[in-house]
């Protein structure tokens, strides 16, 4: 079992925040990664550049964006952030807009975060858990759903 408290500490969460647009949404996810000590501010800019360069492919499921960039000096450790939006915003992805949850990902290498990604994938493919995650009121509750 992945250690969620280490990969997704309280400082990584922002629940039901208001954002202006997709860039602002990614910035929030980046700020949470910085707050948790996983990245520097430069990584936040790199995550936005990834979408500008390669398009909104990071919106991988209806309502879900996985904001990330490649491993670099701006990544200090492997971890996630969890930004739930008060009002969903469009990223320009026809199939999966609008986005209501942005998961920020900082990875040092694939192996290090594979375990936590596996656990998250297990929860996000489960419709019942996805619904619970959208309603959960605290970071503790969200970790419990992911771990359960």
């Amino acid at each position: 079992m992945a250690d969620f408290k280490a990969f997704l500490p309280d400082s990584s969460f922002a629940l039901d925040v208001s954002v202006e647009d997709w860039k602002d949404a990614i910035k929030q996810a980046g700020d949470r990664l910085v707050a948790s000590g996983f990245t520097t501010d430069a990584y936040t800019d790199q995550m936005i550049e990834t979408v500008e360069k390669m398009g909104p492919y990071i919106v991988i499921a209806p309502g879900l964006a996985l904001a990330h960039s490649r491993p670099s000096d701006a990544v200090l450790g492997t971890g996630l952030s969890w930004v739930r939006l008060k009002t969903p915003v469009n990223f320009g992805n026809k199939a999966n807009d609008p986005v209501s949850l942005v998961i920020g990902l900082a990875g040092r290498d694939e192996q290090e975060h594979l375990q936590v990604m596996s656990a998250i994938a297990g929860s996000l493919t489960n419709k019942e858990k996805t619904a619970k995650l959208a309603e959960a009121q605290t970071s503790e509750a969200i970790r419990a759903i992911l771990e359960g």
Partner: protein
Amino acid sequence: MDILCVCGNGIGTSVLLKVNVEQAAADLGMDVNVTTSDAGSAKGTANMNDLVLTSNELAPELEGTTTPVETVSNFMDLDEVKGILQKYAE
């Protein structure tokens, strides 16, 4: 069969897709070997695989490869992934 999952950086979405492809294959009783790659280097490694999976946005990057390329719109939908795998199941 060998499957290559491709995303922009080879570290985020492709890894998540790999996890779900492995799950879908296990559910279908298929024997698969799944690897991940970034879009830039995928062209070189695609030919060593039987199938390439990626998103709609990145599919154009893989034009010209001889390996079949299938796009997935919902990476978290095991049924969609299974539907694609079934087309290639012998």
